[in-house]
């Protein structure tokens, strides 16, 4: 098992290398030379040259690439053009709302998605199942930003239950923070819960087809006991890992929803960076999110080791 973990970690390295390279290439895809892009439109010829030197852009491409890896290893993501501070600082400033929003949305999506999926599987091929699954499919079909817009209309503007937008940071009290995140978290979480319901349902169905369930039924166990004691316990394994995957998915979903609700998180950071052509920030946020995404996927795969004794890795 240990060797497996080590091997998985090693396997991550080439992927990380590719990710870093892609981010590097993105920068060089940008129209114009990166130095004048970084220097901004107001920069003089000297500024551009200074930055060119500073970033080593005068060196040949492979040298630049190797240096770029070096800087990444040291955690140096460069300097934001517009915010005039290190990209890492800019990202750290914005992590809080995005993380909280994501966690909140996961809680919602699991709380709704798992029971819905289990019920649908329990009443497999009945009207209940079909109705639930059509709703879930509808849910998968609504873009989260559209749901967010409709929520603003109903709950904030017409009913006045929630702030229309904005984010109250934790330092002003967690209750306010929670309140400011209710609508965006639901907009994000409901869509995800539809996905989770579909997953929970299929994994539940897979397990219900297993022999030990049939055995349990044959033994004369009540259907309730079969479903809730035996099947559910085992169906939880893939479902729990789904939470991990959801985390990764929702972080990128937050990028979009933050714009609808004017939440100053990583999403707003990257969108405003795109509009301002603040390339180091775009690069930094993309790398940061991709890194998180990779780690979570790794954790999810490794979690099978813990949760499912049947899974064996060579």
């Amino acid at each position, binding site marked *: 098992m240990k060797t497996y973990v080590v091997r998985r970690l090693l396997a991550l390295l080439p992927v990380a290398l590719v990710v870093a390279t892609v981010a590097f290439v993105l920068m060089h895809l940008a129209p114009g030379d990166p130095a004048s892009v970084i220097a901004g439109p107001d920069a003089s010829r000297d500024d551009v040259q200074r930055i060119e030197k500073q970033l080593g852009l005068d060196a040949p491409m492979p040298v630049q690439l190797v240096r770029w890896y070096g800087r990444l290893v040291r955690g140096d993501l460069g300097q934001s053009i517009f915010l005039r501070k290190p990209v890492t600082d800019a990202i750290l400033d914005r992590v809080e709302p995005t993380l909280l929003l994501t966690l909140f949305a996961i809680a919602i999506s699991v709380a709704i998605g798992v029971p819905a999926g289990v019920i649908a599987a329990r009443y497999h091929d009945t009207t209940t199942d079909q109705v639930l699954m059509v709703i879930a499919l509808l849910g998968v079909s609504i873009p989260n930003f559209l749901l967010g*817009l409709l929520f603003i209309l109903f709950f904030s503007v017409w009913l006045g239950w929630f702030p229309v937008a904005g984010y109250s940071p934790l330092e002003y009290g967690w209750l306010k923070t929670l309140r400011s995140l209710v609508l965006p978290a639901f907009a994000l979480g409901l869509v995800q819960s539809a996905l989770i319901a579909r997953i929970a349902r299929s994994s539940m169905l897979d397990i219900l087809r297993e022999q030990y369930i049939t055995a349990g039924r044959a033994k004369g166990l009540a259907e309730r006991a079969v479903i809730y004691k035996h099947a559910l316990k085992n169906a939880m394994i893939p479902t729990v890992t789904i939470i991990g995957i959801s985390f990764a998915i929702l972080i990128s*979903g937050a990028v979009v929803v933050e714009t609808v609700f004017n939440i100053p998180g990583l999403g707003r950071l990257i969108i405003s960076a795109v509009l301002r052509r603040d390339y180091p920030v775009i690069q930094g946020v993309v790398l940061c999110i991709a890194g998180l995404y990779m780690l979570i996927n790794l954790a999810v795969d490794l979690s099978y080791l813990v949760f499912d004794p049947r899974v064996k890795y060579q």
Partner: protein
Amino acid sequence: MSVIALPRPDAARPAARPRWLVLLTRRKTTMVGAGLMVLMLALGVLAPVIAGNPGHMDVAGRLAAPGRAHWFGTDDVGRDVWSRVVYGARLSLLVGVAVVVLSFVVGVACGTVAGYYRRLDNLVMRVMDGLMAFPAIVLAIALMAALGPSVINVIVAIAVVYSPRVARVVRGSVLVIRETAYVEAARALGASDLTLLARHVLPNCLSPVIVQGSFVFAAAVLTEAALSFLGVGVPPYIPSWGVILAEGRLYIQQAPWLVLYPGLAIMLTIFGLNLFGDGLRDLLDPKIRGLATERQRAA
């Protein structure tokens, strides 16, 4: 989390086609999905016939409620929302088809090469893994930042995002098929690699690819809408559902139709694609039910 799928042996045989169709049409949900897709297709293709100029501004008649002159009302500069939604369908269709074609050309090529020529497998698939390590929308945003706003760039960006996902599926199928007895037999008979690929391998991994196609299409439509909504997609004067939504949200209380109709259009389109895709999957590729597809869809 790689997907290994064995196509049913009869799936590619011409004789099975009629049954194929019969099966496909038997499920009501699949038919609803197909119906919605046909509707969208019709809207997109017939746009110049059934809708006016989506960019024409009649400022005096701005923010008119839906009525006889304007079925879906007018927007804040007096453009006909119906025309814009219809042309939005055209754009979504264009983006969807172009992304599917582009990502399939790239994805099938990479996937086949990786699956068939084992020496290249590692290299190709590491690059694909690297691209897939980015969440779709984030990579698309970053690409748009580098490329600049235009319809073609949106297509390129989304295709780059989804090609690796296609490549993965193709590679999985090729890996299995190349080891099968009939490919071995063909090879023993002296068939060249190219012939083998074209005649035996590729046709047999068609069904998972087709299934994947409907999901890529849906994802492309959604991603385009999201990018344009965020203001980093197509330029704002091109009617796209995302653009209409982004502009309409400013008038959400006064003129809810500006959000409602394009929103409904997106929902129905994606819903139709999902229904149809599910039906296709159940039919063509029963083994990749459940978790695997859901995770693909999610990513």
